[in-house]
C-alpha cells in the first residue's frame, strides 16, 4: 500500500529497489526507508509478540520512542524498525519478548 501519486507531494521519489529477508521470505523494499515502512508496504503489520501473553505488537509511534516495533535485525535483537534504514540483504526476524542475541558480542571478539 504505497502512496505512489499524491496531489500535493507529486510522484513518490524513486529509490534503489532492494530485497530484505523477513522471517525467511524475501520482500521488496526501497533502500534507506525504515524497515517498518517496507514491511507495512508489503502488507505486514505484526512485528513482534510479547513475552508473557504472546500478544501481537506493531508500529505505534513511528518516531523511535515507544519500542513497539522492535525486531531482530542481522542477529541483533530489539532494533527499532521504524527508525532503522533498510539495506539490501538485511535479515529481519520477528521476536518474542526481548529476543535472543544470535552472536553474543563477546563471542564475536574471541
Amino acid at each position, binding site marked *: *500500500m*504505497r*502512496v*505512489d501519486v*499524491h*496531489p*500535493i*507531494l507529486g510522484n*513518490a521519489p524513486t529509490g534503489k529497489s532492494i530485497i530484505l529477508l523477513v522471517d525467511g521470505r524475501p520482500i521488496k523494499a526501497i533502500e534507506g*526507508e*525504515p524497515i517498518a*515502512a517496507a514491511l*507495512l*508496504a508489503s502488507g505486514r*503489520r*505484526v*512485528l513482534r509478540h510479547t513475552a508473557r501473553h504472546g*500478544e*501481537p*505488537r*506493531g*508500529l*505505534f*509511534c*513511528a*518516531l*523511535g*520512542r515507544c519500542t*513497539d516495533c522492535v525486531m531482530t535485525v542481522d542477529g541483533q535483537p530489539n532494533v527499532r524498525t*521504524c*527508525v532503522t*534504514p533498510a539495506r539490501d540483504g538485511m535479515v529481519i526476524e520477528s521476536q518474542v519478548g526481548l529476543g535472543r542475541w544470535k552472536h553474543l558480542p563477546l563471542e564475536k571478539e574471541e
Partner: protein
Amino acid sequence: MQKTEIAVIGAGPAGLAAAIEAARAGAQVTLIDENERPGGQLFKQIHKFFGSKEHRAGTRGVEIGVDLLEEAKRVGVITRLNTVVYGLYHDKCLGLACGDHSEDLQTQAIILATGASENVLAFPGWTLPGVMGAGAAQTLINIHRVLPGRRILMVGAGNVGLIVTYQLLQAGAEVVAIIEGLPVIGGYGVHASKVRRAGVPILTSHTIVSAEGGESVERAVIAQVDNRWQVLCGTEQTLEVDTVCLAVGLSPLAELAWMAGCRFSHVPTLGGWVPLHDQDMQTSVPGIYIAGDVAGIEEASTAMEEGRLAGLAAAGTLCHLSPEVGEIKKSEVRDRLAALRWGGFGEGRAVAKRQIIEARCEA
C-alpha cells in the same frame, strides 16, 4: 572533551530557527538531533500555514523546512544528526549517544527545542497492530509514502486529528469517521469544514470503547458519552476499520529540563507540565533556554519565533550582540509572536504564556 558555545537540542522548526539566529549573531552553534534528517515535524506538514505574510502564511511546512536547512548551512551551524542527548549535567555538559558510542559536549549555553510527544489513550485492544498515533500515520504517508491502512477511525478532533484526516484522504485512504469526546470540535473551523466537505463525519461526544481483531485491528466499537465522559448504554456501534489513529493531544518533551532542575508549572492549555521561562525564553536555570513545543504546545510558526527569541537571547548572554541591538531584535520577534497568538484559539495561549513568564519572574 569537545566544546561548543551554544548547543541547540532538537532540529525541528524551533531548534533550526534558534541555531540560525545565534549563528548569525556570531556564536559557535552545534545543532543536535536524534534523527537521520533534520526538520522535526516540519516535513510532515504539507498543508499551507496560517498567519501573516511575515509568518509565511500560505507556504507549506515542507517548503519552510527546506529554506531553514539551507540557511542553517549558510550561517555555519554545525549539525550533528543521529545523535541523542541523553544527559544534561549541572555544568552544562551534555551526554551524547551517537550510534555505538557516547561523547561529552561542554557548552556555555543550551537551547532545548525537543518538541513534544503524542499522548496515548488506553482502551481494550489499544495495543493491537493497527492502533497508532496520528503523528505516526502522518509520518508514514507524507515522509515514507506508505499507507498505515485502508479504512481508518480517527480519535480526536483537534487540529492534529483534522489535519491528519485530510492528509490521509489525500494519500488515498478512507477515513470512516472522526470521533471527539468533547461536545465541541477542538480544532480550527477551516480544517473541520474541509474534512466534512470531503464526506468524513465528525461525531462529537463520542469515544472509542474497544479495538478488536485477531492479530491486528479488524473493527472498532464506538459509543456516545455524557458530559462526564461516561458511555451511554445502547449507543455502541461497530465500525469496520483496519486502523485506529489517536490524536488526543501532545505533551512537552521536557525530560532534559527536569534533569537540569528547571522549575515547572502545570498548564493544561499548553499541554501539561511546562518549564517556566522568562521573556527571553530562559528557564529558571540561567543559561538554559527553551523554544517550541517543549515550552508549551503551539504551532510550527510560533515555534520558529520562540526559537529566534531564544537564539538571540543566548547569543546576547555570550556577548555576541550588544544589549541595545539584542533588545531591538528581540522585541521585533515578541511583536510577531503576539500577532500569532491572536483570535479565539491564540488568546488562551497568550494568557497562559503570560502566566508562565510571570511565574518565572516570581520564582
